[in-house]
């Protein structure tokens, strides 16, 4: 066990010196700092290191610092050769204090302004990106060999097929919940028989596509951002560019194509699952037989409801894909930046999906669809 660092005043033959002893190493932790304060308060002009057990860079720094801050000439004597070398290497120099940025009400306002401004830039950037994707897509369309079919199929599997169980389950439960609430709430008006219409309209027109899009944004959008972001961090995108390959065409286009195909398919499955959930609850809880449920669904405008929901899906897919890819390309060198961008991709995708749904509601109303 090493001895604690100490420094004591010694008077010998008329000479006064500060005798250091023990281990002046980081091992001592707080003890080292306490000893350091003692040394800085000392008045002796001679530091005697001959009794030191051990010294490391921290100890050397502290001795050197005390020497420099003393405001008088302090000589060091009795240092062993290796300690002398260490003292030379770790010689004190003032550490410039890091200037902390001022935080006040003005900077808070500035932050808000900046985030509004950057939100605007984001929207413009999204349009720009969409334009570039379309341009690249059109170019690739003229040369069918440039379509990366294998890559597209791979993403179709991971985004579509592997996502199907989750989408089915979520939609099934939401369909069941809507049916249950419909039976309870509509009973007060004696209109329980309209439950089937409620389930059908709500899920086919709005909920099916929206829930599916939100799940896909969380599941596949985040994956796109993380993949592209990690590739960006490791200079893989730059490697593609110097091979005269456009990352937009090689990476973004297959993912976007797969999303645009997968999302309507998943929405279709989701719609079926929601109707099944609603049907089971209506049957078990509301006493509506599957046969009656089915007959009610044949209502003439049912097909139109169904299509009105499905029509939105490709647009949702496009929004999710564009936002996620953009965020992926914006990842910088740090793990923190990757995390921030993936979060941003999911949040912005979900926000945009809901916004788009609202736009579609207005559009459908205007064209009386």
């Amino acid at each position, binding site marked *: 066990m090493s001895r604690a660092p100490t420094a004591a005043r010694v008077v010998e033959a008329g000479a006064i010196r500060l005798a250091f002893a023990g281990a002046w190493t980081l091992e001592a932790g707080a003890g080292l*700092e306490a000893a350091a304060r003692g040394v800085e308060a000392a008045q002796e002009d001679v530091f005697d290191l001959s009794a030191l057990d051990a010294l490391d*860079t*921290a100890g050397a720094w502290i001795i050197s610092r005390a020497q420099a801050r003393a405001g008088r000439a302090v000589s060091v004597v009795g240092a062993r050769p290796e300690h002398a*070398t260490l003292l030379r*290497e770790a010689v004190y120099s003032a550490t410039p204090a890091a200037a902390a940025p001022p935080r006040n009400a003005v900077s808070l306002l500035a932050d808000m302004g900046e985030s509004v401004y950057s939100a605007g830039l984001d929207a413009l950037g999204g349009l720009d990106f969409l334009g570039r994707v379309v341009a690249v897509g059109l170019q690739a369309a003229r040369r069918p060999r440039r379509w990366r079919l294998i890559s597209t199929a791979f993403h179709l599997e991971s985004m579509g097929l592997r996502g199907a169980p989750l989408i089915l389950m979520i939609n099934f439960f939401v369909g069941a919940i809507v049916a249950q609430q419909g039976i309870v709430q509509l009973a007060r008006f004696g209109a329980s028989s309209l439950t089937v219409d409620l389930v059908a309209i709500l899920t086919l027109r709005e909920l099916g596509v929206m829930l599916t899009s939100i799940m896909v944004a969380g599941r596949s959008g985040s994956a796109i951002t993380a993949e592209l972001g990690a590739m960006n961090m490791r200079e893989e995108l730059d490697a593609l560019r110097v091979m005269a390959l456009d990352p937009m065409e090689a990476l973004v286009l297959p993912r976007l194509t797969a999303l645009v195909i997968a999302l309507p398919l998943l929405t279709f499955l989701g719609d079926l699952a929601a109707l099944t959930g609603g049907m089971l609850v209506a049957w078990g809880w509301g006493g509506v037989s599957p046969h009656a449920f089915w007959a009610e669904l044949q209502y003439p405008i049912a097909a139109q409801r169904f299509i009105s929901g499905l029509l939105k899906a490709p647009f949702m897919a496009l929004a999710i894909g564009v936002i996620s890819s953009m965020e992926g390309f914006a990842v*910088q060198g740090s*793990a923190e*930046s990757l995390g921030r961008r993936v979060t941003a991709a999911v949040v912005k995708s979900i926000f945009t999906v809901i916004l788009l749904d609202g736009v579609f509601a207005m559009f459908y109303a205007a064209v009386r669809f």
Partner: protein
Amino acid sequence: MSEVPAIRVRGLEVAFGSRKVMAGLDLDLYRGEVLGFVGASGAGKSVLTRSILGLQPRQAGVIEADGRDIDSLAPSERRRVERGWGVLFQQGALFSSLTVRQNVEAPMREHLDISPALRTELAMLKLRLVGLPADAAGKLPSELSGGMIKRAALARALALDPGVVFLDEPTSGLDPISAGGFDELIATLQATLGLTVFMVTHDLDSLYAICDRVAVLGQGKVIAIGTIPELLKSEEPWIREYFHGPRGEGRKAPAARRAV
């Protein structure tokens, strides 16, 4: 030697699937020496380092630190041993979300009971020791050049004034002048702090300049270990090729000069 080695490896076996990378490797690393470690690419130099550090599961073998089997140590004891080790990873492995100074402070923050002010001062000292300018302290690892990343990573490896440092290709990717400076730095630190250095390297200049002994890895074992003059006499084909090949031959003259 009767002295207890800082690190002793006995009968190390590591396999990936059916492929044996380490086949009963023995190695002693003595306190205060600089041991260079060479071997063909893919011979398992990094696997050996990772095995000693406990990052790589092994099928058989004993690893002792200061004569104590590290597997039999209590977790707190084991942490104490590991605190005395500094590691410079080949790619630096700096924390990408922290600035250079925060990277160097990270081990101190976790393991030492010292004030933030002293911690910052010591971090800046370490950065100065490895030759980084003060304005690099506030930068993120992604903003640094390859050489600066190596230096920052070395500063972090030295943050706790470790007794044993593992350096994985410390000078690869550095220009010859920086590499020479790096060698000098390691030699100086070794002399002042009494460091024990385990250095995987292919830099023949480093081997000649600062290594006390050199170990050669082949077929999952140490096929030769000794001082450079001893290895130069070896008849083993790979070692002959390594030291007497076109890239090795040119070193002799400067080595001879240095010896004077």
